[in-house]
């Protein structure tokens, strides 16, 4: 038996962002995988020393392009908790509407990339065509397709008029219809199942012990979703976490597909409950001495923000832990004893967002 060392990444057609794995392979079966990160490290936590706490919202949004609204929301909510500011209900529900639209477009993007990972390029194009409607909603309501920048400390800075709300509801109805038309293909097609069922299996106990987050954890049977805590506008909405028990790539893909439909339902609930009110509360003074800790649910899992203030307008410490950082040890546990051709499918099934991991 001969051992070969094969480098995977940093440039690979299936990876959206650069990460490097050194694979030790014996005759097509992978025996060991060692990661190497650091290709897109920007040092954003250090910028808290130079930019004041209002300008840091824009920096935090740019940690990740796909889930940028949710990073901004978590940062604003943590600083609001530290300073003791109460946000109006209208602002909370508006933040929820944009966050759920971000979750929908992130999962549709991932479903397209996943189909591309095993060569089904036509399905990839179909999912991305559906996603364009959501990008149009983002652009016409906030002013920008990807980095929407609507959060300020104390609320939001853009409003939704009743005409815009009617248009959003009609667009997401079309999105829901088109997504359901593709459900049979992504979940039951013979070619899709033969590449994903039984590949990259992780049991429930392993997932909990290795610290997995998000759909990686819920695909193995653990029913935990950070939105159940009821932070922000989620205290007005009710939903159940989406769980599958198989623990392989097919289960993770099904969890994300069903979460798309769940997010569309949450947007409808939030729009129905939207009250009148002010958009933002005035903020005076600087963050006091103290610390605050908050967790939110991003499309990829659980994201943790820890902030310390020291009485000046610059924060003492800003610490971000993103979900892909927590999902890399489970990846290293899934890779041994799989075939070499399955490596791209497994790496993509944890939804790697390396620019979040390295900030």
């Amino acid at each position, binding site marked *: 038996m001969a051992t070969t060392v094969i480098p995977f990444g940093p440039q690979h057609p299936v990876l959206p962002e650069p990460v490097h794995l050194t694979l030790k392979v014996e005759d097509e079966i992978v025996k060991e995988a060692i990661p190497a990160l650091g290709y897109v490290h920007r040092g954003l936590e250090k910028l808290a020393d130079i*930019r004041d706490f*209002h*300008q840091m*919202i*824009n*920096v935090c949004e740019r940690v990740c392009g796909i889930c940028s609204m949710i990073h901004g929301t978590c940062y604003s909510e943590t600083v609001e908790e530290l300073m003791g500011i109460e946000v109006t209900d209208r602002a909370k529900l508006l933040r929820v509407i944009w966050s759920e639209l971000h979750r929908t477009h992130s999962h549709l993007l991932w479903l397209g990339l996943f189909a591309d990972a095993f060569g089904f390029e*036509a*399905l990839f194009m*179909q999912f991305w*065509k559906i996603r364009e409607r959501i990008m*149009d909603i983002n*652009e*016409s*309501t*906030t*002013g*920008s397709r990807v*980095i929407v*920048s609507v959060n300020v400390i104390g609320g939001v*800075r*853009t409003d939704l008029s009743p005409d815009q709300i009617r248009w959003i509801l009609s667009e997401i109805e079309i999105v829901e219809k088109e997504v359901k*038309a*593709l459900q*049979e*293909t992504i979940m*039951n*097609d*013979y070619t899709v199942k033969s590449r994903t069922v039984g590949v990259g299996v992780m049991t429930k106990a392993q997932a909990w012990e290795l610290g997995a987050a998000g759909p990686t954890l819920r695909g193995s049977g653990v029913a935990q979703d950070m939105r159940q805590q009821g932070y922000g506008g989620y205290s007005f909405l009710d939903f159940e976490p989406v769980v599958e028990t198989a623990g392989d790539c097919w289960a993770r893909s099904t969890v994300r597909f069903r979460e798309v439909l769940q997010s569309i339902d949450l947007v409808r609930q939030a729009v129905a409950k939207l009250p009148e009110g002010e958009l933002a509360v005035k903020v005076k003074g600087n963050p006091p001495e103290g610390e605050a800790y908050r967790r939110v649910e991003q499309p990829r899992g659980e994201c943790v923000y820890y902030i310390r203030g020291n009485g000046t307008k610059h924060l003492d410490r800003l610490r971000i832990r993103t979900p892909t950082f927590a999902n890399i040890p489970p990846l290293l546990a899934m890779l041994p004893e799989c075939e070499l051709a399955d490596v791209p499918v497994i790496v993509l099934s944890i939804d790697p967002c390396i620019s979040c991991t390295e900030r």
Partner: protein
Amino acid sequence: MLFTPTVIKNLLKKPATRKYPYEVREPFANYRGELVIDIDKCIFCGMCSRKCPSQCITVDKAAGTWQCDPHACVYCGLCRDNCPTKCLSMKDVHRKPVTEKVIWIEHGNPPKPKKKAAAPKAEAKAEVKPDKKADK
């Protein structure tokens, strides 16, 4: 086999993509595009340069210049939202690509400061007050 209905529908419809740049879509009304300043209304208070997250605006009150680096700007719109005289606005199309970096400086007239000299005090007050009223 489960994908066949979608394939047949797509073969019979027209393409989903637009032939850019021959066909351009209508811009949306709230889009955050190129930044434009009306320099005659500017009072050189420096608020935009304090709020900017990428620190790309420099305001010099003594010399009367307002400078912005259009390549460092992230087009977030915070300067436009916080300007007290509302002289900043954003167009609904993005800045066109250029082949070399441009520098954008605008020259204007800063408002005159109150004169604190003792002798022409009454005269200066009468001169400054109507000026300031016209400014605001």
